[in-house]
């Protein structure tokens, strides 16, 4: 009840005209940078950091929250329309979202994404209001052994994306893992695959790879096909702007499941919202296969709804762990942590007592930002879809410019542009030879998580491997993992036997 009262106070302070303006500015800005490939909310917040000197803390953080959530609403737009995700959290949205757009359902896909982001964000904001302290204790039971189990679990959960062609899928996964290990090893200080180039010491950033492989690779592919088969490039858009009742019913469970997967991830530092989006996508794909609908690969609405909800649900709880624990779980949260420090505020257990106005005003602004973003994004879905009417050469030239601009702005280094181009060509070759891109991205996200958590666990236990199964959380995760692997193997065997059976009868007849 206390929480509810404080939240009401929070709404009181957040709903002042000035703060409403900051929410709106933040949301618009966040959506804009989210839409542009290569520019993410972390960069927008970084660029706005000097604003902290001019604004009062409440206004500034309300704006930052708008940017953070706006980025997650906006990043799916280009992911869906042009297969070029704005930031890492939208990678999973490209898989089915772009296929929906290709089959002429671009406005519906955008609406699905917007409602998904809204659902995930709302659920997590509500949870944060009532459960912020409990979330804090959840994070304390999660040690490196649990992260490692989680990473393995995520690998298996998302393995279905490699199963179309195992060899190509694994090749892509290994490439992703290989890119992820480049850099100075964090524990021993050994250089790995850097060739002595200082620019590679800190590794290759996920943003560069995302933009290169997904956005630039797509640009190259479009450029290579533009004059050969222009028909293949034409995307028809049905006039119907909103979801039909049937589509809505189909997406609802996926939104909720996605949000459920995303929630706990905001509390544990596993590199932002990419992991849960992949897991949500993997789960939907598995469910789809099991139910025999087999809509995936052809623009399944659930394959888009779930990751969108998961991504935003993570953001909500990520803000909670920033406020209650002082633990930044994503790049954007890390920069916001710096902003708190600019005001002499330290997120953590004391913040709720020391600056209750700020905290509750900020939490209230989450709800306001969600509503503002839904209002901004839903009606604009058909409008955004019109982007596809711009002649391809101009459109993709524009995307290329923004890709390069985004990458250059984060590092101020020409070297990164060369890397962008190089990896972009790899992305193009992968498309050319039909190698799936998803496993590469998954390898890049999960690889470092698995590696660092395994090593941390073993360092902590002084090399004793039993630490990996020593807690009940890990035990449960491994049991479930074994169950899933067993079931899918059994299912495959049964299917093969059945196929062989039908083949036999075919021969007989």
């Amino acid at each position, binding site marked *: 009840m206390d929480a509810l009262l404080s939240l009401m106070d929070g709404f009181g302070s957040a709903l002042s005209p000035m703060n409403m303006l900051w929410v709106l500015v933040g949301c618009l800005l966040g959506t804009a940078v989210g839409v542009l490939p290569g520019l993410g909310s972390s960069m927008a917040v970084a660029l706005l950091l000097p604003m902290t000197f001019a604004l009062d803390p409440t206004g500034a953080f309300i704006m930052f929250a708008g940017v953070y959530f706006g980025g997650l609403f906006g990043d799916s737009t280009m992911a869906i329309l042009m297969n070029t995700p704005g930031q890492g959290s939208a990678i999973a949205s490209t898989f089915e979202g772009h296929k929906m757009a290709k089959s002429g359902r671009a406005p519906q896909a955008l609406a699905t994404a917007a409602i998904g982001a809204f659902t995930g964000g709302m659920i997590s904001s509500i949870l944060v209001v009532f459960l912020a302290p409990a979330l804090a204790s959840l994070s304390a039971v999660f040690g490196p052994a649990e992260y490692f189990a989680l990473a393995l679990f995520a690998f298996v959960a998302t393995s279905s994306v490699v199963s179309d062609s195992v060899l190509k899928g694994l090749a892509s996964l290994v490439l992703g893992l290989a890119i992820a290990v480049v850099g100075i090893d*964090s524990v021993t200080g050994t250089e790995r695959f850097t060739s002595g180039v200082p620019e590679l*010491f800190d590794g290759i950033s996920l943003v560069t790879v995302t933009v290169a492989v997904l956005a630039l690779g797509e640009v190259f592919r479009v450029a290579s096909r533009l004059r050969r088969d222009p028909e293949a490039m034409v995307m028809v858009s049905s006039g119907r702007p909103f979801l039909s009742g049937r589509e809505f019913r189909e997406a609802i469970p996926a939104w909720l499941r996605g949000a459920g997967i995303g929630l706990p991830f905001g509390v544990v530092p596993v590199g932002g919202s990419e992991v849960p989006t992949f897991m949500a996508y993997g789960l939907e794909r598995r469910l789809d296969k099991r139910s025999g609908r087999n809509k995936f690969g052809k623009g399944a609405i659930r394959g888009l709804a779930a990751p969108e909800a998961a991504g935003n649900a993570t953001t909500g709880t990520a803000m909670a762990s920033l406020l209650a624990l002082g633990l930044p779980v994503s790049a954007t949260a890390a920069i916001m942590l710096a902003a708190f*420090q600019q*005001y002499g505020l330290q997120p953590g257990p004391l913040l709720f007592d020391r600056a209750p106005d700020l905290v509750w005003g900020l939490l209230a602004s989450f709800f306001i930002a969600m509503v503002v973003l839904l209002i901004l994004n839903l009606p604009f879905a058909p409008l955004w879809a019109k982007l596809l009417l711009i002649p391809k050469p101009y459109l993709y030239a524009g995307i290329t410019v923004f890709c390069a601009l985004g990458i250059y702005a984060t*590092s101020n280094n020409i070297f990164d542009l060369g890397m962008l181009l190089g990896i972009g060509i790899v992305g193009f070759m992968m498309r050319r030879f039909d190698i799936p891109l998803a496993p590469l991205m998954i390898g890049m996200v999960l690889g470092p998580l698995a590696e660092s958590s395994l090593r941390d666990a073993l360092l902590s236990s002084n090399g004793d491997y039993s630490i990996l199964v020593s807690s009940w959380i890990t035990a449960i995760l491994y049991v479930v993992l074994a169950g899933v692997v067993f079931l899918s193997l059994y299912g495959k065997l049964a299917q093969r036997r059945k196929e062989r059976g039908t083949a036999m009868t075919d021969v007989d007849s």
Partner: protein
Amino acid sequence: MKTSSGVRRTVLAVYAIITAVVVVAAMTVSVKKATAAPDITANLTLIAPAGPGGGWDGFVREQQQAMRSAGLVGNAQVVNIPGAGGTIGLGRFTTMGDRSDTLLATGSAMTGGVLINDSPVGYDDVRPIAKIAEDYDVVIVPADSPVESIDDLLAEWSEDPKGHPWTGGSAGSLDHLVVAELALAGGLDASEITFIPKSGGGEAIQALLNGTADYAATGYNEVSDQIEAGRVRAVGVTGPERIEGTDIPTIIEQGHDVELSNWRGMLATKNVPEEEFQQQLDLLAQMRETPEWQDALERNAWADAWETGDDLDRFLDEDREKTEMLLEELGL
């Protein structure tokens, strides 16, 4: 359609006039600028050799803010060139030529970065202007740990050096060096340390609380609230004196010679003309006096640590020697 073309002509005329005004105005301004004597304060660039949100970024942005609000500079912009412990920023800075309007932030992390990464450039390729501020590490343990002092810690740790993991910043960072110096002070072999690198104070606290690590060394200003809230206990601080407003004893007063500071300062390009170097020095000295900067020191729990000239050179040599020795002990 006569009227329409008439309208178009008017629009074009207006457009032409506006363009002309803008161009002439811009030219006047740039001519004015070009003819003025070299004034580094007109358009100053401060380079943070780290990404936004990091320690150097905050350090540089606070300076920018103090300079601007006190009217010391016409314009000051911050540029981030992150990577490899600041050595990428350092490398780029040394190839910029002698730009007296550009300054680079530096500090302990760069001393370490140059050594760890075998950087081809170092402090010899630039001209240090001033050491400006510093802050200190605290050694913390979980609140339910039996360790109450550095002596307790060393006693427990030396029973099984490998079995008591530490956490803190990245490998070779100041946090890691603190652990190494503490090991030497306690007569332990620094290469036997188990150190789990984390990306910041928040993560280090998590590692302490979920039992991954037994002790942590991290910046006081990153964890001061967690200490106050009683989630972790501070058993020693690495500064020469206690931090103002706290009762955490220094490690020195507990009888162990461990003193390390996370210092921050500014660098100029190597061959900057003497007159302009003096201007840079004056600018930083004035910045240091501003109330905005004093406020920034307090907010960030930084201590004023002004040192220039020969003192600074001596300090840099000592810092490099000590860092080199500790890194060698750690086997990095």
